[in-house]
């Protein structure tokens, strides 16, 4: 057998579950992605590059990855605070707030998009004040960041909550008794122990933002070269029956996302390694 460690496992069914996993991943993930790449290959090299790397498309890549990165970073910072508050403090209506966190998961993305646009547009509740100080929220890259932050928040909060619950309270007290200030205790003791979970949350939030379409198209205004995200370009191509062109952009997105997520996972694996004592 190629998997010698599983030979004497107390849990039966390795063959069955492994077979099922491979089949499932093939059908749901690999097959469609394979088809995508094959379809884009019909363009040939020159056609592929022309479709996937012209100035308008490159601008959309920059916008998509840039706003996703900003949104995921914002979520990492504020998601950590929200998760911390929800785990560590007793506050009135905590259960209710906790349930609110999941709302971006459940809401149809178009609904979030319309709601956010209504709030942040020039005449919206918040948009009017932002407009007064010269900030254009809706129909700008800022609007895209707002939408992506909204939909990515639960990923960070939900991955961090169990990690924060797991922190040994005594190790904080130990740090304090050793003379550490609150800031040193946070930075040297708490933060490193939630870092792996934070990176996971960041990666999930980032990945979700890369693929987001529904909420962004309403708030972004979709101006070519300015506020046009890659997913929208793909839809546009599809509407023009340019399937190969759409798959070319999709293939680029796929490759880039995979590389970035793989890198984040590698960092995450590297930071988590120490806890398990394999260092």
């Amino acid at each position, binding site marked *: 057998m190629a998997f010698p460690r599983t030979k004497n496992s107390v849990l039966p069914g390795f063959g069955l579950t492994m077979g099922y996993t491979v089949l499932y991943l093939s059908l749901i993930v690999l097959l469609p992605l394979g088809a995508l790449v094959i379809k884009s290959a019909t363009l040939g090299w020159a056609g592929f590059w022309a479709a996937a790397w012209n100035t308008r498309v490159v601008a959309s890549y920059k916008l998509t990855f840039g706003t996703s990165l900003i949104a995921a970073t914002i979520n990492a910072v504020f998601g950590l605070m929200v998760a911390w508050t929800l785990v560590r403090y007793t506050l009135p209506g905590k259960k209710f707030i906790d349930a609110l966190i999941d709302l971006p998961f459940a809401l149809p993305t178009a609904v979030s998009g319309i709601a956010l646009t209504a709030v942040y547009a020039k005449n919206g509740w918040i948009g009017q004040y932002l407009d007064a100080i010269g900030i254009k929220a809706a129909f700008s890259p800022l609007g895209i960041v707002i939408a992506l932050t909204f939909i990515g928040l639960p990923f960070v909060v939900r991955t961090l909550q169990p990690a924060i619950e797991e922190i040994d309270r005594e190790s904080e007290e130990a740090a304090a*008794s050793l*003379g550490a200030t609150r800031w040193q205790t946070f930075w040297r003791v708490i933060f490193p122990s939630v870092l792996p979970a934070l990176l996971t949350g960041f990666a999930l939030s980032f990945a979700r933002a890369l693929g987001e379409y529904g909420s962004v198209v309403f708030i972004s205004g979709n101006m070519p070269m300015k506020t046009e995200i890659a997913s929208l370009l793909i839809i546009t191509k599809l509407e023009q029956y340019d399937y190969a062109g759409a798959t070319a952009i999709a293939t680029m997105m796929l490759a880039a996302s995979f590389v970035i997520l793989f890198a984040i996972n590698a960092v995450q694996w590297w930071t988590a390694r120490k806890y398990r004592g394999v260092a």
Partner: protein
Amino acid sequence: MSIELTHISKAFGTYQALRDVSLAINDGELVALLGPSGSGKTTLLRIIAGLDTPAVDPRSRIRFYHEDVASRPAAERRVGFVFQHYALFRHMSIFDNVAFGMRVMPRKSRPAKNEIERRVTELLRLVQLDGLGRRFPSQLSGGQRQRAALARALAVEPRVLLLDEPFGALDAKVRQGLRTWLRRLHDEIHVTSILVTHDQEEALEVADRVVVMNQGRIEQIGTPEEVFHKPATQFVMEFLGQVNVFRGRVQGGKAVLAGVPLEGHYFPGKEEGAAMVYMRPHELDIKLYKNGAPSFPAKITRINPAGSVAKVTTRTNDGQDVLVDLSLEDYERLNLTEGTHVHIYPKSSRVFLPEYEI
């Protein structure tokens, strides 16, 4: 006097953890706070460390070397705290754990890098963990982790070392070893230490003085010998070691148990009343026949000779179980078996009267 606590109280909700406790600890002393769970000993330790605050009381004081530290947070008290479950930083190597206290010092008092390295190496040698500095806590055994935690606490040169049930999570053999080792270490470095434990054997073996606590109050403070042989209260008598309790009487100023007067217990002015009589198992003797001295008939119900003494359980005529420790020689000589009828001879005893304690 290195640590002085006066009028310390603490309540958690409606639960009164500490009731007006005052305690003074001498410089370089190792004191054990001993008591059952819920007696307030850990709360007292945490208040000394600054991890908990005492109830507001204008008379309450916490002094380290005559300096009032009550308003100082834990980080400014310079105490070394050792937790029952080690509380090591899991993501740091043992070296980094021990160095932590020095590395978080303000820049002007922080030792230089190579000085930190030298001191950590020295401390790791002191706690017999030389060469394990690069390991992570998860790669050490329980006993090693606790020694690492101790080294970490000592690294900041604490004015007082506080140990909260440090050996509670370890198995009996390791515990015994660490106990002896801790006492030797203390004789070497002489840092004022307070050890919280519920294990009376540990307290009696390690400490210079024992503070017996019960229900948020101090029952007795004394040397191990004093608290064991001269218990001030019924609680101390019952908590330290096994003891047989009898309901006796006072008649004409003398303690009487089952019609037999007990030597050496006189209560002048007390004519008649109830008395509690305490005898430890080693304070009783077993003989097969009456010899004229005061004794009680009993029947042997169980014998356990596996140990340094034979533990004999007997039952008196009125159905009370009495434990007797018999030397192994006596046990062999008397040829006792379960069911043998014997006579129990009290060698010494202690008598407590309700509201009239000696």
